[in-house]
């Protein structure tokens, strides 16, 4: 049992550790690198869950695109100095208490919900490209097309916000 759990346990430990380091490391570039590592471990979880399509999309979109955008912005505005003033202990304690209370609330909600789970794990193959492709271009074709409009709007918006105002 433990042996079969081992890949999950290793990946989960790495995910939690790197997520903590994102929050705790002082230099922003280290945070970005730890976040990339965290995304790779989450990609490993997707592989364990037989979600190959999501694994590929996750690696390409998150590790490939979003984190490069973060790194690019960080280097662009040259923030690797530790200019962030240390927060007071009061604020740190308050943040930790709030986060801990949230954790408590979520854990107790999960444990109080009772048994909503199916009796046995489904053996359907749902994570493959073939299944998801059929689903995406069948039932979900309208949201899929709307996503392209959303991305176009986001691109136009980013360019509009980011460009220098030369006139006026």
């Amino acid at each position, binding site marked *: 049992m433990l042996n079969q759990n081992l890949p999950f346990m290793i990946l989960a430990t790495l995910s939690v550790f790197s*997520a903590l380091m994102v929050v705790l490391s002082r230099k922003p570039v280290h945070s970005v690198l730890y*976040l990339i590592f965290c995304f790779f471990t989450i990609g490993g*979880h997707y592989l364990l869950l037989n979600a190959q399509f999501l694994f590929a999309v996750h690696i390409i979109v998150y590790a490939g695109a979003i984190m490069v*955008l973060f790194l690019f912005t960080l280097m662009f*505005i040259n923030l690797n100095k530790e200019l962030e003033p240390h927060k007071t202990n009061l604020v740190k304690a308050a943040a930790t208490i709030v986060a801990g209370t949230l*954790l408590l609330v*979520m854990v107790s909600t999960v444990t109080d919900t009772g048994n909503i*789970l199916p009796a046995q794990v489904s053996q359907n193959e749902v994570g493959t490209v073939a299944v998801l492709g059929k689903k995406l271009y069948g039932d979900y074709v309208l949201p899929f097309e709307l996503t392209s409009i959303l991305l176009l709007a986001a691109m136009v918006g*980013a360019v509009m916000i980011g460009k220098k105002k030369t006139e006026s």
Partner: protein
Amino acid sequence: MNSILSVVPIEYYLGLSVILFTIGVMGVLFRRNAIIVFMCIELMLNAVNLLLTAFSTLHGEAGGQVMVFFIMAVAAAEVAVGLAILVMIYNHLRTVDIKEMNKLKW
């Protein structure tokens, strides 16, 4: 092919997602660098994505994974616009400290 969920209980995934989400919340409350606050929001999105994928595999229902795909698309759009806004804020204020962004506060 046996699913991983026949050896790893779904509760473990619930626990992992809750912990990752809480770390993200803590980061948002904790840090003052707006870019790191942004990254913690991504972390929270990923915790939810992981749980959606786990439940979708558990139920053998592809809809959950399609939802994860859409969440990723929305996250990409959000990051592009958000980072553009941050760069503009930096051009105006010469800082990304969220304590300095208080013009709309009062």
